[in-house]
């Protein structure tokens, strides 16, 4: 994985010193809250319901064991012994004291981590396929591109005061594990007929109050034109963005209002201008970065079989283990969705165990997923039983990847100051209802996603079953949405009908799954059946 050079380290260290000074001025009363708020937000420090919340960037979801141990130490020392993995492959701490924040940033900097651009009107943490560098189906590792874009855009003045936040994702496979088209700007690495590598480019996606699926703005962009193209996109957005209206500032709104064709025309014109002026691609820098992502030294000649004699282990392996590109190796998914737990939460002790496993079995690498789980990307198949036992002993061996209990839920009204309703208790009740392993397996892939407000951090628009918490005169109420997806056939979930209370929404989810089981044809997942039969039969089953 990427390692800081002296410039990276100097920048991050300078940022810590700057924030330490800002915090001390705020604590001494030499800065008002209005003056301080944008500064703390630039450092990922929010004020939530119960305390300050610190969001730490995990660039493209990649971590090493040293970093994970540091995250555990921060949880123990400055927080209440746990952290929360988010839907942007980041981690959040919920109980931070303002006076501790500079020390935390200092600790993070020691392991090449930071919280820059985890908030505010900037290019946020760039997300990637969590199986990058390991997936059997990828063209190449997309992370060097993420890192290059991160370096190019961090602190760049033109990108520092954007109209609104801007989210980028990069993948390199047909299968979409990063909800690509729900991003403002998204790249899929592809090969053209001539065998050249380039990007299929999407623009104008996003969730939130007004969801849009990104449209394909370029079928094939040569890789060495990426900066010119990204800059062209940002420039067109910057030029027209409605900075006067917070609900219209995201680029997706501009794309919608200008129209895809006109937006693309303006981007292409801007892009051509950049190329004509001789925009240079930093090939040497790309090569330097790409070296950090060279495949680890996989052993040759390993046995490709997994011993499934232990039925408990077999159940875990069959659900959590995914094909790896190297023979004898596998990708092991770690569920952070125990039934009764809080989606994405992990204790400091569990973080330490996972760090040990990464160090011992996975070339020191870990991944965070946008589904709030973790991944050991490169493990020998022969080591899977030992990994499973260690996970089981610390409560992380649930076998529910992409099943009904693998729910995404945002923090909701239990933590978030913007929330209208609680998300986590709903997730817990649904998980309890579908906890039976046999039942979950029978239902198969089912992506349930819950947000506590219209900001959609819980990705409800992309849920096969989406749930949105609303406030009905001070009473929590939940809207049911059906038919969303973040996979290669991206689709937006639609509201099924009137909302429910907390128990009612759990019943409604169950009714939807029962209808699916009655109606599904051979090999269909929930989303396939929904696409085939449409909303009406579901509505009837739920409301009839």
């Amino acid at each position, binding site marked *: 994985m990427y390692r800081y050079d002296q410039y990276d380290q100097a920048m991050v260290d300078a940022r810590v010193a700057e924030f330490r000074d800002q915090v001390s001025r*705020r*604590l001494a*009363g030499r800065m*008002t*809250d209005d003056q301080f708020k944008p500064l703390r937000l630039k450092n990922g420090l929010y*004020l*939530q*319901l*119960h*305390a*300050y919340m610190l969001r730490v960037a995990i660039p493209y979801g990649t971590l090493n064991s040293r970093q994970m141990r540091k995250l555990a130490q921060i949880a123990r020392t400055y927080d*209440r012994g746990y952290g929360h993995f988010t839907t942007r492959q980041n981690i959040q701490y*919920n*109980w*931070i*004291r*303002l*006076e501790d924040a500079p020390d935390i940033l200092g600790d993070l900097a020691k392991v090449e981590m930071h919280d820059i651009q985890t908030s505010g009107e900037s290019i946020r943490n760039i997300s990637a396929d969590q199986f990058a560098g390991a997936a059997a189906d990828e063209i190449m590792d997309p992370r060097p591109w993420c890192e290059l874009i991160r370096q190019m855009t961090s602190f760049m003045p033109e990108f520092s005061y954007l109209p609104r936040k801007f989210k980028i994702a990069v993948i390199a496979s047909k299968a979409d594990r990063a909800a690509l088209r729900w991003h403002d700007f998204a790249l899929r690495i592809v090969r053209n007929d001539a065998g050249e590598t380039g990007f299929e480019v999407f623009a104008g996606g996003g969730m939130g109050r007004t969801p849009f699926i990104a449209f394909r703005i370029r079928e094939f962009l040569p890789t060495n034109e990426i900066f010119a193209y990204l800059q062209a996109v940002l420039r067109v957005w910057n030029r027209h963005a409605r900075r006067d209206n917070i609900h219209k500032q995201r680029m997706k709104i501009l794309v919608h209002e200008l129209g895809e064709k006109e937006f693309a025309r303006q981007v292409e014109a801007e892009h051509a201008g950049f190329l004509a002026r001789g925009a240079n691609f930093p090939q040497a820098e790309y090569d330097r970065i790409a070296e950090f992502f060279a495949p680890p030294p996989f052993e040759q000649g390993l046995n490709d079989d997994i011993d499934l004699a232990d039925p408990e282990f077999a159940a875990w392996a069959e659900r959590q283990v995914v094909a790896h590109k190297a023979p004898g190796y596998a990708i092991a998914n770690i569920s952070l969705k125990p039934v009764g737990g*809080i989606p994405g939460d992990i204790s400091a002790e569990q973080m330490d165990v996972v760090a040990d496993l990464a160090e011992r079995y996975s070339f020191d690498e870990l991944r965070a997923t946008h589904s709030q789980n973790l991944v050991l990307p490169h493990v020998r198949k022969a080591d899977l039983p030992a990994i499973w036992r260690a996970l089981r002993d610390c409560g992380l061996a649930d076998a529910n990847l992409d099943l009904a209990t693998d729910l995404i839920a945002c923090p909701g*009204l*239990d*933590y978030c100051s913007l*929330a209208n309703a*609680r998300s*986590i*208790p709903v997730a*817990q009740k649904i998980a309890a209802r579908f906890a039976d392993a046999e039942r979950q397996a029978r239902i198969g892939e089912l992506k349930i996603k819950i947000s506590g407000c219209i900001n959609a951090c819980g990705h409800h628009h992309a849920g096969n079953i989406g749930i949105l918490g609303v406030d009905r005169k*001070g*009473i*929590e109420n939940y809207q049911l949405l059906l038919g969303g997806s973040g996979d290669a056939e991206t689709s937006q979930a639609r509201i099924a009908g009137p909302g429910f209370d907390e128990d009612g929404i759990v019943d409604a989810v169950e009714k939807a799954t029962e209808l699916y089981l009655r109606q599904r044809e051979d090999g269909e997942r929930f989303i396939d059946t929904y696409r085939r039969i449409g909303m009406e039969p579901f509505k009837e089953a739920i409301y009839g």
Partner: protein
Amino acid sequence: MKIITGNNLRSGAVVWWTGYDWSLHVEDSIDVGEHAEAVIQREEGAQRVNGAHAVEATRDEDGVRPAHIKDRIRALGPTVRPDLTLKPADPAVGNWVI
């Protein structure tokens, strides 16, 4: 009744205006009635608390109860982590929020 709440500048902890200071416990709140704006302005100047604002509440035999669920969750702590609330030993505490 009208009570005033905010978050402690240093810790971020939820605090409630007692008439002369800030308390972690909502039951210490006083009814500020007409004086909410004056208290908020004065306390903003003192810079001990972020985002001081008034909320509606009622008082009964169980103490002060904010009218909105968000403020009740603020007063208590996350309902999904009773161990981290202000009343970790009280099994009925969730009922108070709902």
